[in-house]
């Protein structure tokens, strides 16, 4: 019985990490139709910055704030000065954002070197929680907690605030939204910055777990894209369901079908897309 609980918690905690990664990308990709392939680079820089902050201050809250806010600032800069010129030009967006990822990767190599870094865990997460006779990492429970809080806040923002309503309007029909006096330009910048903040935050939260090293940026990007494709572009509910599904399937897949370990993440994507091409909760278009 306790083995099952551990397996489920494993899957859910990995899924929650994926959700933190995916929520930022689905906001940007899905709501604004901007192909932001520098999402992986945002993760990496957020993780490296958190490492440095934790080494100097051992204060995890400070690490979260500095990681999240610095990447938000980076996102703001990129959107304001580069991406807003490429409205509705996906190929150019791909080139630009991949180019930025390569720049971030080289800059990280110069600043932090190539050795893998793992963010130090917060002090209250150092001992495992006992579930029966087995230990379970308390940091993973913390990830589940933070993921749930972030999910709730995002849902409230989208469904229950005026800003959220305006964003949905602007995405649905930009021209009419402008005609109604909604400042679409400003809204898009806000959303992009929020997405970048979430990416930075996921770097801080994923840092102790996944690590920061050359190559992690593209690995994370791949995982995140799989999740939002499965969940459906632009849907927050899709990002949550998709990430939990992938987390659980990946975990149980590795336990029961170890020979398929390479495919446990991609096989669900293929099956779900064959059944529902726009993802589980994606809009049909």
């Amino acid at each position: 019985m306790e083995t099952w609980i551990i397996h489920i918690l494993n899957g859910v905690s990995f899924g929650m990490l994926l959700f933190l990664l995916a929520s930022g990308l689905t906001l940007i990709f899905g709501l604004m139709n901007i192909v932001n392939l520098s999402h992986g680079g945002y993760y990496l820089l957020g993780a490296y910055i958190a490492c440095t902050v934790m080494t100097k201050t051992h204060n995890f809250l400070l690490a979260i704030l500095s990681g999240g806010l610095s990447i938000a600032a980076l996102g703001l800069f990129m959107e304001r000065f580069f991406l807003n010129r490429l409205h509705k030009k996906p190929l150019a967006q791909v080139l630009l954002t991949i180019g930025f990822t390569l720049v971030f990767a080289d800059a990280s190599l110069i600043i932090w070197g190539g050795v893998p870094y793992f963010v130090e865990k917060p002090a209250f997460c150092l001992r495992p929680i006992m579930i029966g006779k087995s230990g379970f990492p308390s940091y993973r429970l913390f990830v589940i907690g933070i993921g749930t809080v972030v999910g709730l806040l995002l849902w409230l923002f989208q469904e229950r605030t005026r800003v959220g309503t305006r964003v949905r309007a602007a995405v649905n029909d930009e021209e009419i939204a402008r005609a109604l006096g909604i400042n679409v330009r400003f809204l898009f910048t806000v959303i992009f910055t929020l997405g970048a903040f979430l990416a930075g935050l996921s770097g801080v939260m994923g840092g102790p777990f996944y690590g920061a090293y050359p190559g992690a940026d593209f690995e994370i990007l791949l995982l995140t894209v799989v999740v939002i494709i499965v969940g459906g572009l632009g849907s927050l509910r899709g990002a949550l369901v998709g990430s939990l599904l992938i987390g659980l399937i990946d975990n149980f897949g590795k336990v029961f079908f170890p020979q398929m370990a390479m495919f446990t993440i991609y096989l669900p994507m293929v099956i779900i897309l064959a059944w529902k091409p726009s993802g589980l909760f994606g809009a049909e278009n």
Partner: protein
Amino acid sequence: MNFGRVFCIAAAVLVLVTAMLALSGAQTPSKEPIKIGVLYPTTGSSAFQGISETNATKMFYEEKRMQVAGRKIVLISEDTEAKTDVGMTKTKKVVELDKVSVINGYQNTAVGYAIRDYLNQVGVPALVSPSGGGFTRKLFSPYIFRVSPATFQYTYEPSKWLFKKGYKRAIFVGADFAAPRECFRGFKRGFEEAGGKIVQDLWPPLGCSDYGPYISALKTGEADVLVLTVWGADSIRIINQLADYGMKSRLPIFGVASFCDEGVTIPPMGANAEGLMSCYISCPSTPNPENQRFVSEYKKRFNTLPGHLAYLAYIAAQATYEAMDKVKGNVEDKEKFLDALRKVNFTTPMGAKGYFDEKQGMVYDLLLMQVKKADGEYHNFEIDRLKGIKDPVNIFP
């Protein structure tokens, strides 16, 4: 047209051409510098290894004042990016454009195998450091000398050592690609021959982000030791995750090759590194004078301890230098130079004899190490040594 002017110009050109011809003829080969290609992955996911290897190579030749037997040494450094196509392009560049006489490089096995045919065909000697055993087996070439110990070499005998230490039942966890699979074959055969039993083997994918499912499946009650063949960021992740699940205290852990690497994998493991056993070829804490000199010089220049791969690159340069010195710098006489490379016999910084076996793979003293806390930091300490271990090509063809 002024005939006089034409005549003067023609005379000047003639003098110039003659002078150039005379000078180039007068330059005997031994006055030109020896060019050595240094090809390691200095960007990409192997960047930290490639940079340390390039640094260690440069350090060695600079210690010899960039010259051998009166001839200058020039290093031509290129980045292979740990990719086969890039490695091939850079190799062709240093051979055809820079005309290097010898190459020190190739840490990534796939790249090493990819350039084997080309180097064999153009006849440029290379001292390489991959972990795969191909160069002493089917991919043998008289021009390629493998400085690194290969998978079977660092698992077969050490597995018997592990059994003799009292660990009779083992769980084996390896990343799912060629090198760990070879390590498993080497380890299993040696361990079972000694009387041991492998109770479980697990194969997480290379670069696995979440070892949770594997850790939860470990049959800790049935085993005495956990043997790991995961490297780089994976080794840090698996050790930290084992500690997160409270598993690390349940089972002693033994890893091979660069699993516990000073300056690279040990610092991010923090306190979780304590007690980890490993088997490979270098240990900065070993107190012999030459090792201490090597370590302190490296630390002074690069602000970090030399890891295993930096040590391998240093040995590659050391072997190259020995051979160049033996032929008094005349590397153009290929037969003599190759012969000198085959016959190198020097003392490594770890105090072992450095020489190649008949398949041109280096014979090693394998160090058995354990991480212990010293002065508030965690470092490898030698607990035993297996001397003169060759690549067991006859047992694992």
